[in-house]
């Protein structure tokens, strides 16, 4: 059996397993086992991928399976992976695994919660392995819809509002995206012949320039909304603030990456001409995202809002780097996706754990947590340092690769925006240190908090998994970087043909 | 052709008038039973058309006749169900004023 099918089958089996459990305990054990298997499978996938490459298989995509399932529209279940998808799958498995442990103690309807969570993860896995635009879109929707339930039912605060806002804005994105995808589809055979959704085949032809100009913005913004592109990012702070822990983790960690992934795999790969022409607009928008998100984060008082704005900033950097359209910057963009995925997941996991204890997320109501819950506090500091780009953790690798890449454009426009984007590292340091200083250090503000306990074993599993991943990328980045770099070639060839 | 000096249009005028009087009744009447009566008028006007067309245009067969019969049967069925409903509504709302029954709004 093809290994990629496992990424769909294991979650389905897990869901069936969850349905057959009787109590809370069984549910979470089954989920943990399922997602653990998923994690192992993704490690095996990385291994197999390397083995295959070392054996001299230099096809663009490996492990391809093609199965026609909608003949009249030529829609295929077409899957395959390159280094980038492999890396993204690994990220997803890690975050999902950590997410299951972070939501170990969900009280209400645990079975339904875990099922929705796993459905979401399935959508994400499916998205990363699909090579057919329609199948990809289908999985995209599978990933977005459970979000509504997860936030609306298990969220906190104004959860209905946030769930509605998030879902509607993402659906608005999907609507734009659908227009873009159909635009591509109907232009996929400019010289007559069978229309197709197959990404690889479309990449071989050139979509007419007028069509590209028209449909590129649709596709790019459609995915960009999910990637928190300014000014379509406002779902992110509210959504994250209301979402339950594991959902914030998966959402910020993985789902927002669908946007970035889609932007280059679909928008830029298939419409390189328009990408070149229109890049400047989006470069300006993303540069604004980067700086604006960072400044926005300084003023916030709610931990989740701080992180949401920080995500806007970091995800802006992903799109920014993609639009620089050279090997180094794009490599950096993908590393940034993975790095940001891991560290945001870590952040949200920790915020959830802290919130679960103190029942507040306002930083000015807390203080001195280092003394009360040293484990969580140390993890938070590590996450913060990763976020502000400390060498040895993943954020540094990503940011530096991006900046070096972006600097390879010698003209003034690119240099100015790059320097602007660079300046975000200072602002990031400001807000991260502000949080760390107020939240973790200093005297304990509220004597009630002195009774609180440190992390439990499952919380440790969750955070340690993520920290190990962050540190691993930070200390030996070369394997990840090279894994991605080799797979960027088709996209770069495509882009440089214009 | 005329029959005894009356053209087909004579019947059509009658049935049309009856039909729209029925519609008028359906639109202005408040009582459900009177609305039902309006419906009966409408059905009846249709029946007249069936029979008249059959008689004037296709005297060699009886489709119109049968359709009219079927409509009568349906009218009977409809009336029985409608009255059952009206009685039920009356039980629940103690009224058969159509304006009182707006649970289905929005």
């Amino acid at each position, binding site marked *: 059996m093809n290994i990629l099918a496992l990424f769909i089958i294991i979650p389905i089996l897990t869901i069936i397993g969850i349905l057959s459990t009787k109590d809370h305990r069984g549910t979470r054990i089954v989920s943990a086992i399922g997602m653990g298997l998923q994690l192992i499978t993704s490690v095996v996938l990385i291994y197999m991928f390397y083995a295959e490459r070392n054996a001299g298989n230099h096809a663009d995509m490996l492990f391809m399976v093609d199965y026609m399932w909608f003949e009249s529209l030529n829609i295929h279940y077409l899957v395959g992976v390159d280094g980038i998808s492999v890396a993204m799958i690994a990220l997803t498995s890690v975050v999902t695994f950590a997410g299951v442990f972070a939501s170990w103690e969900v009280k209400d309807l645990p079975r339904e919660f875990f099922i929705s969570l796993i459905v979401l993860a399935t959508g994400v896995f499916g998205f990363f392995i699909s090579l057919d635009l329609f199948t990809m879109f289908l999985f995209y929707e599978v990933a977005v819809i459970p979000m509504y339930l997860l936030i609306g039912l298990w969220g906190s605060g104004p959860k209905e509002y946030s769930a509605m*806002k998030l879902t*509607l*804005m993402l659906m608005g994105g999907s609507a734009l995206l659908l227009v873009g995808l159909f635009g591509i589809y109907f232009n996929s055979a400019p010289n007559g012949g069978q229309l197709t959704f197959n990404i690889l085949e479309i990449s071989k032809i050139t979509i007419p320039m007028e069509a590209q100009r028209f449909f590129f913005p649709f596709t790019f913004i459609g995915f960009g909304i999910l990637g928190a592109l*300014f*000014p*379509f*990012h*406002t779902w992110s*702070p509210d959504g994250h603030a209301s979402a339950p822990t594991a959902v914030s983790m998966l959402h910020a960690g993985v789902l927002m990456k669908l946007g970035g992934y889609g932007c280059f795999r679909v928008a830029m790969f298939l419409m390189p001409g328009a990408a070149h022409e229109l890049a400047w607009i989006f470069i300006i928008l993303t540069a604004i995202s980067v700086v*604006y998100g960072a*400044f*926005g984060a*300084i*003023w*916030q008082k709610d931990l989740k809002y701080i992180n949401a*704005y920080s995500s806007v900033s970091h995800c802006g950097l992903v799109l920014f780097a993609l639009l620089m359209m*050279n*090997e*180094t910057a794009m*490599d950096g963009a993908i590393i940034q996706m993975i790095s940001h995925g891991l560290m945001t997941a870590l952040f949200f996991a920790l915020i959830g754990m802290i919130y679960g204890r103190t029942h507040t997320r306002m930083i000015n109501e807390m203080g*001195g947590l*280092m003394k009360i819950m040293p484990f969580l506090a140390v993890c938070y500091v590590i996450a913060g340092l990763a976020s502000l*780009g*400390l*060498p*040895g953790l993943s954020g*540094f*690798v990503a940011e*530096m*690769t991006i*900046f*070096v*890449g972006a*600097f*390879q454009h010698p003209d003034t426009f690119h240099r100015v925006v*790059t320097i602007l984007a*660079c300046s975000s*590292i*200072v602002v990031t*340091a400001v807000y991260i*240190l*502000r949080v760390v*200083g107020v939240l973790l*250090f*200093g*005297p304990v503000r509220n004597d009630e908090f002195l009774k609180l306990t440190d992390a439990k074993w499952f919380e440790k599993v969750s955070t340690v998994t993520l920290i190990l991943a962050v540190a691993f990328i930070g200390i030996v*980045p*070369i394997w990840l*970087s*090279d894994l991605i*770099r080799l797979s960027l070639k088709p996209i770069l060839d495509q882009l440089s043909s214009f | 052709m005329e029959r005894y000096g009356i053209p087909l249009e004579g019947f059509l005028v009658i049935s049309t008038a009856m039909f729209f009087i029925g*519609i008028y009744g359906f*639109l*202005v009447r408040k009582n459900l039973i009177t609305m039902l009566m309006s419906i009966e008028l409408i059905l009846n006007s249709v029946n007249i058309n069936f029979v008249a067309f059959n008689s004037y245009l296709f005297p060699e067969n009886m489709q119109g006749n049968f359709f009219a019969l079927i409509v009568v049967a349906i009218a009977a069925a409809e009336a029985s169900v409608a009255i059952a409903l009206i009685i039920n509504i009356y039980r629940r709302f103690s009224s058969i004023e*159509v*304006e009182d029954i*707006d*649970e289905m*709004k*929005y």
Partner: protein
Amino acid sequence: MINFSYTIWILIIPIFMFLLLGLLGMKFKPIISGVLGTIGLGVVMLLSYYAAYQYFFQLPRIDDAYQQILAHNITWLNLSASLQIKMGVFIDPISVMMLVVVSTVSFMVHLYSIGYMKGEKGFQRFYAFLSLFTFSMLGLVVATNIFQMYIFWELVGVSSFLLIGFYYERPSAVAASKKAFIVTRFADLGFLVGILLLSYYTKSFDFLNITGPVGIEVTRNLTQTFLGMSVATWALLLIFMGGAGKSAMFPLHIWLPDAMEGPTPVSALIHAATMVVAGVYLVARLFPLYSFAAPDALTVISYVGGFTSLFAAVIACTQFDIKRVLAFSTLSQIGYMMLALGVSGYGGEKGVGYMASMFHLFTHAMFKALLFLGAGSIIHAVHSNYMNEMGGLRKYLPITHLTFLIACLTIAGLFPLSGFWSKDEILVAAYEHNMLLFWVEYLVAGLTAFYMFRLYFRVFWNKEPHYHHKPHESPLVMTIPLMFLAVASIFTGFLPFSKMITSDRLPFETETNLMVAIPSVAIGLVGILIAFLLYKKDNTRVEKIVKGLGGVYTTIYNKFYIDEVYMFVTKKIIFNLISRPVAWFDRHVVDGFMNGIAGVTVLASRKIKGAQSGQLQHYAFFFVLGAIAFALIFIYLWQ
């Protein structure tokens, strides 16, 4: 051929210690982790000495020049076809010298802290952070390329952050650590952009390439200009901005005095001897580039250095917190080093400034560490940082007193202590290059002697205040480092630096210029004399002078209100004028627009849903009208 591959252990041992103490430290008794850390560092120190011995005395020279050796160089990250980030160990005169400085001071501080930090909560954590710092600093020193340097540069910044904020429950410590990190981070932004600019043209990060003939050639021939300066000058100035941040040059100096919130051994290690000279080291590392490609940048450096040294020396005269006096003194001395680099030429005799700068870096590390550790010993004894609460301590702290006096004499530049030799070389270099700076440095030499002896007399002589309990001399574990460093301060001046560490790695001869040396000693003596008159005994002369100076004194005492300016910029401008409006804008305009769309939709739906009245007859009415309309359309209009 001598193999230097063992030097990697100089890096491995501290990071191993960090992980060991960081992860398992809580399982050990505090004292064990202290001893473990110290032993580890002892090994590192011995390895560094061995490396230095081999490098300077055993390694054959090529054309009389010391070799540059890449002991290790592995690719860490591929950025593009030409740019790779590598990690390795680079051996050349200055890196070996820095290895010696860092490992010596670090070892002394490790040893000293066993006594000083005894009984503190988080003892293990302290040692873990010290190891992390030592690792990062050593990694910075042996960097083979500018990006590795940047990486360790950041790590050093973080360890400094962690150590300043060691007493994390004290708000002032937290604020100071935050300030230190953010200010240096801001400077690092310049450094980063400088690296990006430079590497774009030289197509390499490696020091061997960019400071070698090829790199110099490329940067020299850059024709692009921006705002009237060549790109090379820009790049190097930006890199210097990074250095200025770490080395706390004006106007990025504000974090250093606050950093004294950290434990005193940390101040000795990081904020006096090692980390703060990283900026000097950075400029020295890229010196050929500065010298050939951007002499304008060097001029800027010399003026920044000169100004900082004067500025800090003036402030130091008015401070009462002994650690702050030392901090400003550090600023002033680093200014000296920067100035020396700035006025230096390249090669042979012309490179005397370079040599002097490195020489001063070396001697300064020794005597400044000594001063700080001595101050730590004093604080340990009286539990206060303020000299008002001290006096007459010479009776209680004999060893500290003696070593402190030696250090004061050294920094004042009295013959034949080490400070004399290195400062003399700097003055010579300035004399040959720029008379203005030369006179400034004379003035600073006098001021230095004055404020150091002001400190000395206030603390060890003067009137004895009422002590809560009798001050006592520190334990041996603290005084041994003091004694060792005192010996080092006395004798390191005799090291033949011009034979070992020069700009082009070729040895040259220097001789003392009596015309420079004698007045410098004299002005030092004058400073000491004034301090003696004012502070030896409790008297009212000082108050009179202070009154006479009035506003000038207040301004100086408040450090020229630079902190306030920064506070204004950050609090008022960045927070209130940028961040707050951005947050507001986001919530109300961007999000308001999105919500507005939703609102319009809701409004429209509310209007439309009125049609769903639930009134059967309304529906029927529209049905009829609709049917008629369709009939009309299809019959009459649809042709």
